[in-house]
């Protein structure tokens, strides 16, 4: 975020409707007329484009524009919220009136002098939609399709898609925040269906981040996504039924970090802990993981999918240590929950759009590397499972129970990798699972840039990561050996 970004955001969001700073002050003034602690205006414009390939041809491109303003008035634990998908003065004043209805009496609060946070650029303030010619986008998808089909005659179908989003946000609040961010985000997905002797299987791969589409031209990245999707589909052709029951599980590096996201990440979000609804509530300072585990949430990594120069409340993102050598030492906070808990925001206030309220959300959540050689970790297991790839997961914050589904996994027998197994859900208990981490690899990896996190019906892009981990006891939900 810098002066240029703020100027560009104002030009894009405010200038078309002739909105000036005095209009924003007037709207904040309306919000602050009751017993209001804080008021905020959030302007957003999102342009999105996607292209999809099927049957070897790019059948369709689509484009969307969304813009609007969301306004909040906060009084104690109460929030009044309204939004409009028209950024014009009458609509702004109308939604400010509606949101202010939460607090009708009491003293007027004052708007603090606006200031801009320090300059930061974790990603370029570009429009990624224009970082490649349309013809080149089509050609890129076709190249991936052809290259993937050429690799194996068992390929029956390739679906590939390319998406680019530019999000421009401008936040101004009674706390004195006046800040903007321009956020590019690109993503490519490939899925492959293979068939062999009447058996069909599917493999997926994807990647991306906060940069231009030209990323996919570099180092054959696009073709590698196709190769990886194919590899996973072919592995599935060989899969045997998954075992059922509790066993030692070795998780591969990178995307399997979805374990951390589900098992402990959500449980450490400030809202659940303020309300006491999380299984981790009131446990700061307690031992919740083995000494080998140090876990952070870090929104400041260059170009990462979960990274942000500032969160959606204008607070700069940071690296927050959640667990240090097994000890619970921090929650992730937005401004509302931070204020009510008497701490500072950690820059984790995020919202899907102007039409949604900010919530404490993760950015990039990962475990720091440990002392073990990954090969040594697999070799240490007599009987268990090695799981290098996962689908999504889910957690029950209150009971702490979480699941995630292994999309690629192998049996381990006497320290050796064996046959791949069919898809299986793994289930565990968040507050206790990390106490069972007995080995941590030296091979920290972050995911390829595909994570989407859902909470209260809101989706936001996130990152996860971890080194290879050995967990002595997770329940594997297969069908074999019951």
């Amino acid at each position, binding site marked *: 975020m810098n002066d240029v970004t703020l100027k560009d955001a104002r030009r894009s969001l405010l200038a078309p409707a002739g909105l000036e700073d005095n209009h924003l002050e007037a709207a904040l003034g309306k919000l602050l007329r009751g017993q209001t602690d804080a008021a905020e205006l959030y302007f957003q414009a999102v342009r999105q484009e996607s292209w999809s390939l099927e049957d070897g*041809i*790019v*059948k*369709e*491109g*689509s*484009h*969307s*524009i*969304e*813009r*609007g303003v969301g306004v909040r008035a906060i009084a104690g*634990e*109460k*929030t*009044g*919220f*309204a*939004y409009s*998908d*028209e950024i014009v003065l009458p609509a702004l004043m109308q*939604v400010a009136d*509606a*949101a202010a*209805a939460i607090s009708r009496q009491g003293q007027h609060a004052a708007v603090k002098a606006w200031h801009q946070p320090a300059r930061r650029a974790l990603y370029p303030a570009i429009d990624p939609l224009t970082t490649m010619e*349309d013809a080149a*986008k089509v050609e890129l998808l076709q190249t991936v399709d052809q290259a993937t089909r050429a690799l194996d005659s068992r390929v*029956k*179908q390739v*679906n590939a898609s390319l998406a680019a989003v530019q999000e421009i946000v401008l936040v101004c609040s009674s706390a004195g925040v006046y800040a903007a961010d321009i956020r590019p985000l690109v993503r490519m997905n490939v*899925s492959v*269906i293979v068939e062999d002797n009447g058996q*069909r299987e*599917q493999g997926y791969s994807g990647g991306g981040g906060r940069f231009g589409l030209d990323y996919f031209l570099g180092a054959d990245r696009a073709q590698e996504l196709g190769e990886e999707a194919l590899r996973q589909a072919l592995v599935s052709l060989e899969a045997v039924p*998954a075992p*059922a*029951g*509790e066993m030692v599980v070795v998780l591969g590096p990178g995307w399997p970090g979805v374990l951390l996201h589900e098992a402990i990440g959500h449980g450490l979000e400030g809202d659940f802990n303020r*309300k006491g*609804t999380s299984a981790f509530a009131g446990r700061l300072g307690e031992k919740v993981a083995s000494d080998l585990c140090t876990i952070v949430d870090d929104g400041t990594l260059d170009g990462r999918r979960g990274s942000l120069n500032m969160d959606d409340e204008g607070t700069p993102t940071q690296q927050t240590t959640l667990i240090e050598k097994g000890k619970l030492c921090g929650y992730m906070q937005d401004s509302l929950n931070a204020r009510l808990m008497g701490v500072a925001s950690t820059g984790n206030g995020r919202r899907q759009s102007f039409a949604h309220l900010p919530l404490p959300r993760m950015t990039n959540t990962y475990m720091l590397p440990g002392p073990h050689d990954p090969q040594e970790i697999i070799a240490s297991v007599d009987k268990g499972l090695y799981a290098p790839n996962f*689908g*999504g997961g*889910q957690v*029950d914050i*209150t*009971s702490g*129970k979480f*699941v995630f589904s292994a999309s690629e996994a192998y049996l381990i027998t006497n320290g050796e990798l064996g046959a791949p197994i*069919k*898809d299986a*859900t793994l*289930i*565990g*208990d968040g507050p206790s699972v990390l106490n069972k981490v007995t080995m941590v690899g030296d091979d920290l990896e972050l995911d390829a840039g595909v994570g989407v996190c859902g909470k209260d019906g809101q989706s936001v892009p996130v990152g996860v990561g971890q080194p290879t981990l050995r967990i002595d006891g997770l*329940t*594997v*939900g297969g*069908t074999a*050996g*019951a």
Partner: protein
Amino acid sequence: METNLDIEPLREHVDDVLKQAREQGATQAEASASLGAGLSVTVRMRAVETLEYSRDQGLSLTVYFGKRKGSASTSDLSDAAVAETVNKACSLARFGAADECAGLAEAARMATSSPDLDLWHPWSIEPAAAIELATECEAAALDSDRRITNSEGATVSSHSGARVYGNTHGFCNGYRTTQHSVSCAVLAQDAGQMERDFEYSVARHRDDLDAAPHIGQEAARRAVERLGARKLGTRQVPVLYPARLARSLFGHFLGAISGGALYRQASFLVDSVGQSIFAPLVSITEEPHIPRALASAPFDDEGVATAPRTLVANGELHGYVLGSYYARKLGLESTANSGGVHNIVVSDTGRSFGDLLADMDTGLLVTELMGQGVNPVTGDYSRGAAGFWVEGGTIQHPVSEITVAGNLKDMYQHIEAIGSDTELRGSVRTGSVLVSGMTVAGS
């Protein structure tokens, strides 16, 4: 709250973009415009937590230049944004490849009449009244049991929407709908264990909502009953899916018989019309015209008239779920399912929920399913679960941190009974379902 949403301005937007698309040379075009408004209040621990007003609008356009297609949408309905949207759709179409199956649904299939489905019942509830109702709902939960120690709150919401769809066949029609809900989620705590559960009611007409105190009490009862949960040893047993979870079993079925999945061969039910994919006791219909139902619609997202039909009779599959594009790809006709299904009704076998528990005798009554855990290509099924262990037809104790697994093809054949306790809160209407031969994994 704004409840008098007018159809006419939406019709004008649709007509306008179709005209602009034709002027740019599109040979066919289709557009939809929507407007929605709502109010939602949440009360937590007997105090107001949020008061939210929503108002959403949108316009989306698909253009065809011969067999080339482009799409664009906008939430900004200013002339400039609409013009940009039309330009964008047209320019994207130029880069797409020609696709023989692209185009509007057949003109002869357009809905010619619009049955009144009784979907529009605005509830002009003021925030103060909504807060009172939510407070009453949560209080019923908090006061019902001393083990209810905390709450995620009770929410009352009311939403009204209008949508118009039109295309260059000359079809242009729209209708208005309302949807109201009351929900409550609370936490029960005992002996160091904490469990959460919820209850909700949703309806087109506020008079069809369950009483707020009843919703609160049900949420509390469900949360308290989960206390004392333990793991279960790994075993093969029958599993009883109560109606509200049984819907998901048919959701997987609908996904597997939808056009895109079938055409990509990303389905475990490819080429299965005419085959017995369920036990003979299972029959399933689609009934799009049930008055006030949550998934009723006079026409689909392409203007194709909806009509009642049989999907499964005595276990045998009679048809797929198709919009016009994948219907053409598969050499079939649209089944008026562009945009989704319209009230899927699963016949029951005349057994009450209590009968089903007795029929199961020993097995798992599942009350929560977690994660995705379904492979659409193979039908392999493995999901996280919580519920109750049942012996002799009687609930013994709650269980959690377990998985239930099988393959959907086998599970559908192993449906032993369907209860008469039909769930109405969604697009799939089914009673509880008893499935034999599942693998439960635990400690």
